């Protein structure tokens, strides 16, 4: 069954207005939609990230669901424990890790890999704003090639880690990428993940207007363009079988890059190089889609 806007509007969310998030935050947009799909029977585990701040200062919280704040590297391990504790009490609860890209790709990868290998029944969500935004825009393992951050003032020289594929290589039942520019695709992936038993992983491309220096009002447009230019392909790997969920008509990568000042000053050659990398990845995914099992 495919979720529609009417289904989403009926469900209560776990996000309350008036949080400390920046205007136009992609992470709150993703959380609003995800929490409506996951429903009230959900416990969140949040490592240090923007989302620890978005909850707002003690004694108030902008999240109306039970939420456990934990240290940077411990999110997946904590979620494993939370799920098992509820199981001992005889309760079946969705346990969801809501982590940033730093807490997933760099600092949290060890616990994440361990939980995936053990096959814990949790959903790990990485909302990826492609740098350490909370501490002031430092590069992370998810920052794309040639992007400006405060620690890569002339553009990052290294390729980002392909985190969804790293998790998929653990042979977990469900891995998906999503984007806040395609909210229905995102909602349906959460709906699917909710019903699967075992370790699930969803990687959300989440716009960060202050960090990317993109216009505040273009949060959705930037995230949509990322998909339409094949910069961020949307796919899911269910029991080893890869399927590209959105196949838009290709638009020039320049349209996506021009909206963000973090890519300002790229030379023609660098844009061509990025375009080539993007197309290589897309063709690779098309190739993988044809095979019976990816992992």
């Amino acid at each position: 069954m495919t979720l529609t806007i009417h289904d989403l509007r009926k469900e209560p969310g776990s996000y309350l207005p008036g949080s400390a998030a920046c205007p136009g935050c992609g992470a709150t947009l993703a959380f609003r939609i995800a929490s409506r799909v996951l429903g009230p029977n959900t416990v969140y585990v949040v490592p240090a990230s923007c989302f620890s701040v978005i909850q707002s200062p003690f004694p108030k919280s902008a999240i109306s669901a039970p939420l456990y704040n934990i240290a940077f590297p411990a999110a997946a391990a904590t979620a494993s424990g939370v799920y098992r504790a509820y199981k001992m009490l005889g309760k079946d609860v969705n346990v969801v890790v809501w982590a940033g890209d730093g807490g997933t790709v760099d600092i949290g990868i060890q616990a994440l890999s361990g939980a995936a290998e053990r096959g814990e029944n949790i959903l790990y969500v990485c909302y990826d704003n492609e740098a350490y935004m909370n501490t002031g825009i430092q590069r992370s393992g998810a920052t794309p090639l040639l992007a400006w951050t405060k620690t890569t003032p002339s553009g990052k020289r290294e390729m980002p880690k392909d985190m969804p594929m790293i998790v998929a290589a653990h042979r977990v039942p469900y891995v998906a990428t999503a984007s806040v520019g395609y909210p229905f695709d995102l909602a349906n992936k959460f709906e699917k993940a909710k019903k699967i038993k075992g370790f699930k992983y969803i990687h959300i491309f989440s716009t960060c207007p202050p960090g990317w220096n993109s216009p505040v009002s273009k949060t959705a447009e930037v995230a949509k363009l990322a998909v339409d230019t094949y910069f961020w392909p949307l796919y899911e790997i269910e029991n080893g079988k890869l399927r590209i969920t959105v196949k838009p008509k290709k638009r020039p990568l320049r349209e996506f890059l021009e909206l963000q000042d973090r890519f300002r000053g790229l030379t023609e050659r660098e844009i061509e190089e990025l375009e080539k990398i993007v197309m290589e990845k897309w063709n690779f995914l098309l190739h993988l889609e044809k095979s019976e099992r990816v992992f």
Partner: protein
Amino acid sequence: MGLGVPIIVPVSKPSKGAAGKTGLWRVERPVVNEDKCIKCWLCWLYCPEDVISEGDNGFPKIDYTFCKGCGVCADVCPTKAIQMVREEE
């Protein structure tokens, strides 16, 4: 054990406006033109702050106490029914 130290459990309680009246951050306010609105609710879907709800007349209603004025609703509106208007002093 009477240690005489007050024990505070660090548990936050859910509340609207946990970071205060965030509407004060706004530079421009979104205004809905009900003649143009087709009630597709895309503004509701894309609002990062969850401040858009259905008003009594069935059209989108914006909670200006918490709306941060990011303008995502105006950007995604297919009929351009939402205008960003500069806040007066």
